[in-house]
């Protein structure tokens, strides 16, 4: 309970995501030098105690059936939570009318993508690349190294420039920034070192905050580098046919938004509707109408895509819980009536 209170208050200051990771997604929460149990530890302990009670201290009788059922449902819920924490993947998709994609962008993970002559070649995870390591990845004719990577990042003017800095990196430096409670304001940037590309060697700046991307010529090819949300492939593609936003008449407050999409799975095509509170479920993925953005007067639909093997556990748990509670009430009632 203490954890709940602290974690909730913290959300105001460090934002929902950060608080979730810190308080509720961890085993140990450090309060200065003192280790306190994080949510994972607490929940593990609760699960353990319930199991212990059920196995060791619950006589199986008709009277106790409701109670046992109820407690088991709690276990099921926790189990579902565990599976969700381990397996769940979520991301988002932004589509304008007529656009289609079969990639889902991650909310928090960032990837460094390298494209050759406009064609995407590979994606690396900047978090996994350690600062200073030199990485040579085929088919790149040069090596990459990370001079500095931060997320969230802030752009600052460079104090002393050196010849090794090329492009925007000549005048701009990056430094870590305190996470903002508004997730969209946390953006990544990287100082990327390139070696082996001849005259183009140097340290370049790639960032989500900038429109310009580092572009080098090595041999007869052009390579561009981009930092962007990690993308995962979907086993099908989604195309937005039409996006409907209806406002309350006379206001610009949205009343409902609907996306009319076409799903294409290996050339089998069919239309579907995704709207607020009514998602589309297909092949283990669930697509929700999350929100929309306006870009140059055009409305773009934002869909959230979730893939969760543990999604059905809470439903099972609730049914069990209700059954257990009702059963308990009925049984107790009958007992009282008997006496």
């Amino acid at each position: 309970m203490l954890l709940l209170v602290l974690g909730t208050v913290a959300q105001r200051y460090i934002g929902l995501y950060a608080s979730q990771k810190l308080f509720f997604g961890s085993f140990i929460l450090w309060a200065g030098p003192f280790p306190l149990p994080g949510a994972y530890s607490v929940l593990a302990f609760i699960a353990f105690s319930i199991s212990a009670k059920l196995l060791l201290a619950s006589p199986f009788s008709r009277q106790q059936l409701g109670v046992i059922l109820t407690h088991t449902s709690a276990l099921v819920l926790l189990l579902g939570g565990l599976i969700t924490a381990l397996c769940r993947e979520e991301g988002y998709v932004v589509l304008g009318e007529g656009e289609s994609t079969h990639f889902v962008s991650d909310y928090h993970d960032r990837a460094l993508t390298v494209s050759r002559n406009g064609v995407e070649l590979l994606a690396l995870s900047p978090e996994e690349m350690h600062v200073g390591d030199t990485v040579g990845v085929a088919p790149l004719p040069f090596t990459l190294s990370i001079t500095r990577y931060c997320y969230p990042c802030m752009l600052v003017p460079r104090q002393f420039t050196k010849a090794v800095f090329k492009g925007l990196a000549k005048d701009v430096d990056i430094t870590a920034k305190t996470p903002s409670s508004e997730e969209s304001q946390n953006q990544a940037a990287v100082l990327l070192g390139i070696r082996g590309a001849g005259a183009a060697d140097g340290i370049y700046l790639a960032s989500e905050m900038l429109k310009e991307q580092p572009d080098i010529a090595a041999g007869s090819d052009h390579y561009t580098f981009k930092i962007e949300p990690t993308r995962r492939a979907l086993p099908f593609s989604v195309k937005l046919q039409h996006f409907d936003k209806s406002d309350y008449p006379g206001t610009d407050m949205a009343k409902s938004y609907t996306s009319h999409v076409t799903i294409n799975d290996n050339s089998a095509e069919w239309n579907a509707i995704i709207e607020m509170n009514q998602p589309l479920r297909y092949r283990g993925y669930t697509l929700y109408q999350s929100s929309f953005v306006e870009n140059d007067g055009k409305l773009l639909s934002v869909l959230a895509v979730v893939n969760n093997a543990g999604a059905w556990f809470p439903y099972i748990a609730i049914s069990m819980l209700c059954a257990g509670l009702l059963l308990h009430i009925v049984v107790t009632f009958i007992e009282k009536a008997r006496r």
Partner: protein
Amino acid sequence: MKWLAILLLLIPFSSVADNHTELDYKDFMRIPVLHEGRIKPMDSVARIMFKRISGHDALPGNSASAWFAGVLFDPVRAGAQKWFLVHSPDVLHMLSLPESAEGTYSYEELEGALASHTPLLKLVAAKDKKDQTAADQEVLRLFFLMNNFAEFMESFSLLMPLADIDPQVREKLGVKDNADVTYFDLLKIRQTLREELKNIVVRKQDHIDKYSAHEQSIASLMYRMDLLEAADKENALLRVIPSSWDESGQWFSPWSVIEKGDGSPASAALFQHWHLLAQAYLHKDAALWKAESEALSATPARTWALKLEVLYHRLNPLGISLALYILASVLGFVATIRRAPAILTASYGALLTGAGFHAAALCARMAILMRPPVGTLYESMIFVSFIASAFGLWLEQNKKNGEGLIITGLIASLLLACASVFAADEDTLGVLVAVLNTRFWLATHVVCITTGYGASLVAAMLAHIYLIKRTWQPASMLALLEQRIYRVAIVALFFTTVGTMLGGIWADQSWGRFWGWDPKENGALLIVLWLIWLLHGRVGGQISVLGFVIGMASLSIVVMLAWVGVNLLSVGLHSYGFTSVAANGLLIFCTTEAVFIVVTSIAIYTLRKIKHAA
């Protein structure tokens, strides 16, 4: 805003200073208007504006609608009257306004003050929301309020009489010498006037001194028309004309109808009615006023819902309930002390009647809004207080000793009073944002959780009574009361748990995650865990009876924090309301409760020790 100049172009006289109280506003109040997302009676719009401007619900002895009619049809006078409430000395200082005894200012004064402080306003508006002080926010609020007020004032400027109309123009229009001529009338012959002006300019250029009287009047008329059009063609706030052509249920203001070309025979008829209504107001023609407002109130919309809404605001059933609940708790208290069954019955009757009005209010809200009555913090408060009073009645049925009456009288009164704080300057019959716009989940999850909150509060209050009584009675005498607390706690646990789970399912259906450690989810979980912990302890014997009761009494703090406190944090998907008055109220409540519990506990322990020693 050269509103004053513009409006002075129109009205050849300033109307006599009286309130037009001889006009019957009954039908005017029911005229449908599309405002803030739904169709409401004119009366509701009037009340909201009046509340936002003056902080009061209505004038004594006069209705908000009467005031609003003045704003619409006699804007010059309305602008000069002191209605705007500005009580913050910081704001007054920022705008260089003199402090006044009642703290009220006229639109004129405020407009002047805001106009001369435009750079300051820009600075304040550019600040990040977190950096804005309370005075900054108040100044911005005033600014937007003034804009709205100005827009309302100019809604009918196209139907207001213009001054100095040349007799030749009158002839062209075919109107008599003393009849009103409005901008709208002149639109008909605008092309002719334009051509005439063109001729004049071709002949005499812009040497106005060389123009004849007639030519001067034409030029001035065209100029005034252009000025008026430029100022008001975007006027869209008072949407009283249903669109004849737009399928989406759009309504337009009179100016918008012209701007967008949405006219039709139906809108022409409505314009005619509004024109006559304005005339009736200015000439204080009661008969014409009544006829025209009656005709206008028949504009197609859900007439019975409009009537209901006007009645709802006039009757104020929640206010009546509050009064009755307070009465019931007082009488109940008196009845228990003096053991007078007659007073007890009276108390029961008061609670029952109060609950009846309360239920009627909730049903009316449902009928008006066509959705379950639990969409905002305000609505959830009035719903929970209803649950509390329903519980009280049930408790009282079971054991007729006034306890039920006192507790629920108290809870219900407290909550209704709090709710009015959250009403503030909001329209309490508002529409919901897209994500909440789902009747199914409102009816299931929200109703369940708020019922759970209500039950928890009732259990907590019963625990309070136990603690009070325990200071002079031994535990054995209070065994039944303790059992009752236990039972209500179980009910509370059921509803809060099921409600929380349903909330998770809703979240899963809408946003793809069952549980997000969101403040509101955490709050609900806190209540559930608290109850589970206490109940398990009680059943398993690890917590003493007294410990259990103290825990239950503290439940009130937990519930209020989880419910109201969470909104104040305003983080995450669940944040729908925030004010600092509420923060203070919450703090006071929690402190009082904590003090109460600590004091009674200490008293009980000390008295127990004394008894053991004796």
